[in-house]
């Protein structure tokens, strides 16, 4: 684990970090890696036969319901165009 790893995860998780935060989180991640080492002896191929909600996929009918209006759902968007039809973002092209 080094600075490059922190920068890679920062980019992957879309969280901009200050230089001070990068140092702090590097130290934390190294410390956590030691912690995760406690699982190193486990073999995922030898999963116990027991299973319950951890392994279950929960599916339901894909049926449309209109409990709320579009306006209700967009009220919390941080920015909207004047006619509420679009959420503005920086230009891509």
């Amino acid at each position: 684990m080094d600075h490059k790893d922190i920068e890679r995860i920062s980019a992957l998780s879309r969280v901009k970090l200050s230089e001070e935060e990068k140092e702090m989180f590097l130290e934390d991640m190294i410390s956590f890696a030691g912690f995760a080492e406690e699982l190193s002896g486990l073999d995922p191929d030898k999963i116990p036969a027991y299973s319950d909600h951890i392994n279950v996929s929960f599916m339901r009918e894909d049926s449309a319901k209109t409990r709320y209006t579009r306006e209700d759902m967009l009220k919390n968007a941080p920015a909207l165009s004047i006619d509420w039809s679009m959420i503005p973002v920086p230009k891509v092209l």
Partner: protein
Amino acid sequence: MTLKTISEKLAVKELSPVELVAEALDKAEKDGFGCYISTVDRDRALKSAVESEDRYISKKPLSPLDGIPFAVKDNILVSGMRMTCGSRMLEDFTAPYDASAVKRLTDAGCVVIGKTNLDEFGMGSSTENSAFFPTRNPRYPDRVPGGSSGGSAAAVSAGHVPFALGSDTGGSVRQPAAFCGICGLKPTYGSVSRYGLTGFASSLDVIGILADDPEGCSTVYDIISGKDEFDATSHDLNDAEAIPRTFAVCEELYSAADEDQRRAVDECSVILQELGFRRVSVSLSSIQYSIPAYYIISSAEASSNLARFDGIRYGKRHEEASDSTDDLVSKSRGEYLGIEVKRRTLLGCYALSAGQREDWYQKAMTARKMIAADFASAFKNCGIIIAPTAPSVPPVAGRTNIPPVEIYRSDIMTVPASLAGIPAVSIPFETQDHLPTGVQIMSSKDGDKELLSVSQKIYSMRKDS
């Protein structure tokens, strides 16, 4: 006054919903412990109380809890109220609908009076990680109230409301209940709908209940539990078999706690034997993997769940110009998410990244299955398992420079039940120095009702009851 006493007094008109709600609102408005991030509009609450009073006059109360005020952790939606999750990211978010648990309670006549403080997005165990202010422990003011549902626990402990809703991902209802001298229920996973609860770690999150006694938790649980069409993981309680009258002390957790906590467990053991329970031994050796497994799984799920707070779909947007959408998202999240949330987001993202997934995430899932299997096997030999709720008494408030990994380790008592999805109740005890502690009572899945019934008997037989 317990919830049952209040309910009985309402039924015979010794108490009035209007007086009850007005008193709760007064207390919440004068709150000196930092319990609330926001309180309800007074007129809205009193209007509901008047309607409830009319129902009592016409002898048609909606439920035993009609007219009773309650508080809601601020990561659960209450229509028309702000919901911040204790984060600057959601400072301006207004809930567009009620969470199912809240709706069931308001449909039963209960009245929301406020949204309570929490560690940001539920990540923490002291309620000092709120982006706004810390909550203080009403009964032990120099100590933390626990977390992350510290605001809800404090509101009940201070006597503002007879019960409150919290959420429990790895102990966030049980540990603050123990620290504030009250009871807390973490229900069986899926027995209470998560619809309207802001997701932290979806395979672990449950809405829980904080009240003075287990009987109070049970009455609320009757109302909020059961299948909900808006949460596919929710279910009606299966007909649980009667809890066998045997119990075990989880030795792995008992030995990891300090002397005060062990003494409380010893007292609870004596009470159980007086109640006719026979003590047996069980092995839960996989519990040794709980903490790394919990932090890897919960952080991995959090890194996915919290991706929606990007300044575009939800959350505050970085004000300055950005070069690209990615840049805008990164800056918004960098600016408005707190340190602990960033730490776990990075940790979760790393755990799921190429190369690391096999080493960390899959092994954590293996550990989780081993823990669930160990509990299932143990419950073939005993009805309930008891353990301390926390490894020590509440720490003093304002501690700094504690390494995160050390703080994470203090969750050891509560995360095993979360990983296994089983119900657990924390019952308050006191140390010899009159500091708060708690004993956690666990049973097999869907045994919540009987677990609460046994817990009530234990609660009534404590030395300090």
